[in-house]
């Protein structure tokens, strides 16, 4: 069964990426986590994302396109990245989520992936 591990990071946590003092520890933790994930062979796919200030949102209302800077305004948590993992059940997915650095400084959401639509 496939689950998406969705890493929500706090604004402070995201800022550590750019801080000369904090960045080594920040990336070190993520590299160790990703190494463990990939060595266990559960990863189907996944990516880290660039910081939220690089985001652009698009919305269409009444047929008109609105392009806006950033993700949700005033969000305290930001999507930092995601992995899709193939594991036996929710408990195993939750174990992996528990180990993520984002779980200590933010929150990790676990969502089952929709099975592919039947081919006709």
């Amino acid at each position, binding site marked *: 069964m496939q689950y998406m591990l969705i890493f929500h990071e706090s604004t402070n946590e995201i800022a550590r990426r750019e801080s000369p003092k904090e960045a080594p520890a920040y990336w070190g933790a993520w590299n160790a986590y990703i190494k463990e994930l990939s060595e266990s062979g559960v990863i189907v796919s996944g990516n880290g994302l660039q910081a939220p200030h690089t985001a652009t949102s698009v919305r269409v209302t009444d047929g008109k396109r609105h392009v806006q800077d950033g993700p949700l305004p005033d969000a305290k948590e930001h999507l930092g990245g995601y992995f899709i993992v193939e594991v*036996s*059940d*929710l*408990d195993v997915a*939750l174990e992996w989520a528990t180990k993520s650095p984002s779980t200590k400084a933010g929150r990790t959401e*676990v969502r*089952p992936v929709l099975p592919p639509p039947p081919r006709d």
Partner: protein
Amino acid sequence: MLAYRFRDIEAAEDALGDALREALERWTTDGVPESPEAWLTVVAKNRLRERARRRTTAEDPRVTGALTEMVCSLDGERRAAVDHRLDLMFVCAHPSIDPAIRTPLMLQTVLGLDAARIGDAFFVSGATMGQRLVRAKQKIRDARVPFDPPDARELAPRLHAVLEGIYAAFGVGWSLGVETPESSTAEGQGAERMDEEALFLARLLADLLPSEPEALGLLALMTFSHARRKARFDDSGAFVPLAHHDVSRWDRDSIVSAERTLLRAASLRQPGPFQLEAAIQSAHCQRLFSGNTPWSAIAILYEVLNRNAPTVATLVAHAASLAELGRYEEAEARLASAATANVESYAPYWVVVDHIAVLRGDVDPERSALRHAISLTRAPALRRYLEAKWTSDAKR
């Protein structure tokens, strides 16, 4: 002699070990046999016979005796394997399930209650409860919440939810029993079955987890209440409140057994809400032995309970115990804390509001609190009791 016995037990243990291994393989594919103990005993004896170098070991009554003893002591584990209902309750208590829906889910999946009845117990409509239950079950299925029994680390946090589920089932059985007191009717028997079912699960859990004080506390609490079941109505079928129970209708043996269970829980020195509630029921039961209800002890126990785990029900009960002691202002303060939650549809709150007003002599002529309580009460016997209270208080 000791060596001989030791070798016997070892032989029996080996045989039983084989039988259990075989059971694990067979039962998962063929299902659990109707009488698992008998099955285990027969298989273990066969293994013993096959293994025995000397025929005498297999036929020796001391060996077979030890074997029977072991199978009996396995009872707990056996029942855990057999009683899927408990396993299912632990699934409902999985941390990924919304805490508010765990108990309703247990009531539905394990005890077969319908959404409308569960909705009643949680003060929401049957339709709303039905939707929430469907959503929770979809989550269990779609997110593949595992059905394995929780490991030791996961057990403690889930245990409390399971205990609450069992107690809720007992509460539903209680209300059903008040609605249909006649045990000759199908409904009355249904209520009794629900009580028995909840008691069975509580007993099972206490057997399986003999060092979990709250599991013992819940068993004691329910046993105390159950012991007083027959005193809830008099011969004419009229409802009798606890303080006026005819104690000769109480089941003394059950009360003594509950007392013993509670002592065992207390000896583990980890107090908790179920043990406190059991202690309160134990105090009520003291009337059987001393002729008096120790209201001040009861008020102190509620004080401790409400400091740690307040609920609307325990705050209202605390107020009632303070009113018995004539401490009306403190009683009203407890009612005020209860009223910060939704008490609009909680009849006991309105009964106690009215009761305190009557005791203080400043009841409004409309008796609006009592009237509201009656309007919330469906059980005919309880309604009659409250209506009679109205007329008898009016005469005073």
